[in-house]
């Protein structure tokens, strides 16, 4: 018998018992959609955690710190030049650190970092409106949320306003020396830092006789970091890097996804029993029919193939619908959660994508449903093929 005819008969039989087929397929749909829902949630959370906790750019950065005054003297423009010459170094950027006070705000002492414009990613800085400094010497400042609050300002209203800062600690020799500068707020940082912080262009403070606070070295890619770090340390500087926790996060989620998948497997196992049950009952109902088929020239193989095809069709339908359902429920939940989060809190608290469905997983799940169902149909199909045609003909 041709495969197309086996399928015709199998689908015909399934269509004739619509309710039973619907219920059996529903079992598979529940099993598969549970797996899909749970596992794509796992994948989604994994991505979310990585996205929210780890700046992949930050993993390429080595920071040269000054432990004491002696060491800090060595952090200078000559060193910057030297670091630049190390192979595989992408960016070298120094920064100043000052404390300051603000005219009209008694007791408010924000920390001011002077950094080079264009290298915000090295500092893992994200501004609300995506602004940077107008140019390297612009008298501008980007303030963090805490500082905005302490200035009794609104995060949107503050932009464009100028404040008079008195900068202290601008000379390595004279700690009393100060500098007065009026800085215009260009943007607000997206951060959760409890400290009052402002960032200004590096060159605004180029005239000060201050040491660098630190130098950040960004390497061309993450794998090259240990190598470059070793070279810098061999030059006698202490360095620090963000610990790469990606491996640990991925491992943790692999375990979580495995567990979630296992829960879904329980549901699919129940569905497989459902298929087995349906096929067995169908076998009993159709014993006479099988007898007829054999009497008019159907081979044992033809009979078993019809049953296998029915089970496989149930699996394929269940897999496809289950995939769609699981994905749909995930999407729906995602939309609801994001909507509620956007109503309840600030925009950066909205989690974004909670579910992630890798394409290979989509195909894998449907194939898996197909295989499980086919397997559940093997025994009834074998029995159909082994039926004695004469007894089957007498069976009513």
């Amino acid at each position, binding site marked *: *018998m041709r495969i*197309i005819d086996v399928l015709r*008969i199998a689908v*015909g039989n399934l269509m004739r018992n619509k309710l039973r087929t619907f219920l059996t397929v529903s079992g598979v749909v529940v099993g598969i959609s549970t797996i899909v829902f749970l596992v794509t949630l796992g994948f989604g959370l994994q991505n979310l955690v990585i996205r929210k906790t780890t700046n992949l750019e930050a993993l390429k950065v080595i920071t040269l710190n000054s432990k004491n005054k002696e060491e800090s003297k060595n952090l200078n423009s000559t060193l910057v030049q030297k670091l630049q010459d190390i192979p595989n170094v992408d960016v070298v950027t120094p920064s100043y650190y000052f404390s300051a006070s603000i005219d009209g705000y008694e007791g408010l002492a924000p920390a001011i970092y002077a950094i080079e414009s264009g290298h915000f990613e090295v500092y893992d800085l994200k501004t609300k409106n995506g602004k940077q400094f107008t140019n390297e010497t612009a008298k501008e400042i980007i303030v963090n949320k805490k500082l905005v609050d302490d200035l009794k300002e609104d995060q949107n209203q503050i932009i464009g306003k100028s404040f008079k800062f008195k900068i202290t600690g601008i000379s390595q020799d004279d700690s009393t020396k100060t500098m007065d500068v009026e800085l215009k707020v260009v943007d607000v940082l997206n951060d959760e830092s409890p400290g009052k912080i402002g960032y200004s262009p590096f060159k605004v403070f180029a005239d000060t006789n201050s040491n660098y606070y630190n130098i950040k070295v960004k390497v061309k890619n993450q794998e090259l970091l240990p190598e470059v770090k070793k070279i810098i340390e061999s030059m006698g500087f202490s360095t620090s890097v963000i610990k790469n926790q990606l491996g640990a996060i991925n491992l943790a989620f692999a375990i979580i996804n495995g567990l979630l998948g296992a829960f879904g497997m329980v549901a699919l196992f129940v569905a497989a029993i459902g298929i087995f049950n349906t096929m067995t009952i169908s076998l009993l109902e159709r014993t006479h*029919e099988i007898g*007829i088929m054999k009497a*008019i*020239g*159907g*081979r044992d193989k033809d009979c078993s193939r019809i049953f296998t095809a029915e089970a496989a069709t149930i699996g394929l339908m269940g897999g496809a619908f289950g995939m769609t359902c699981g994905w749909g429920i995930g999407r729906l939940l995602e939309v609801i959660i994001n909507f509620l989060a956007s109503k309840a809190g600030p925009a950066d608290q909205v989690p974004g994508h909670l579910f992630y469905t890798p394409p290979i997983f989509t195909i894998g799940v449907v194939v898996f449903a197909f295989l499980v169902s086919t397997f559940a149909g093997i025994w009834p199909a074998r029995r159909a093929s082994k039926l004695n045609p004469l007894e089957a003909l007498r069976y009513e």
Partner: protein
Amino acid sequence: MAKAPVIKINNLSKKFMLGDVEVQALQSVSLEIYSGEFIVFFGVSGCGKSTLMSMIAGLQPPSTGSILIRGEDLAKLNSNELAQHRRTKIGMVFQAFNLIQTMNVIENISLPLAFARISKGRRIKRAENLLEVVGMSKYKNRAPNQLSGGQQQRIAIARSLVANPWIILADEPTGNLDSKSADDVMRLLVSLNRKSKRTVILITHNPDYLQFADRVFYMQDGKVIKVEANAHAVTFNEKGKSATSSASKEDDFVIDDDTKDEVPDKPNTEETKAASDIPEENGNTENTTGESENKEEEVEAKN
């Protein structure tokens, strides 16, 4: 005329257990059936005639003895070959019709061809031709349970013919039918034998049907007790019974591809091609049909 028998049964016995009791269904049956014969196995129920039929169909193996279909021993065939035997050489008609209730008329008729891997288009065409032959064309999309018993049996006969078999085995085909439907079915079977020279084996306990037979095997207690040759087997309308309706019908009764066992002519027509496709699966081309005779019949029908 020294013809090779189409069916040769040697010393055939069949025992089976009914609970703890051993039943001897057939005892040392030996017989030969020739191509084109109309054979009746006659006897009361339980005499073993149905057992004999199912063994000829290869549905159960003999306990001892052998069944040779055109010299081929059924005991030597595996289950696939037995399926092919039933598909290509035997057409079965049952008392209980045994149509598949979940399939419509045309699907039922064409099912044996589906097992033979013949494409849907050709199956349907062939089934439609046979539907016309049995006068059921307008019912082709009906479910079997929407038809009367007589109509169902005619569908079953069409199904038994679809793969163009050598032998039609009919086990009490009129047992469940009223007399009018029984007449229709018998008329079909008789003309099948007379017109297209198919070997028909009828199993019955109705003595009315003995007159159609070329030979009658009388059976009792698992044995053939008497063989009676009938030199003047009647065709249906000679009987006079329901002659009015039968005359035209019989003339229409043209099996588009005749089963001529002895001379496998080259099949030319579309229909004979379809028929010769049937054993394709196993490369068996024995079952080809005689086109010349086919044409003759068509001429006959037109006149």
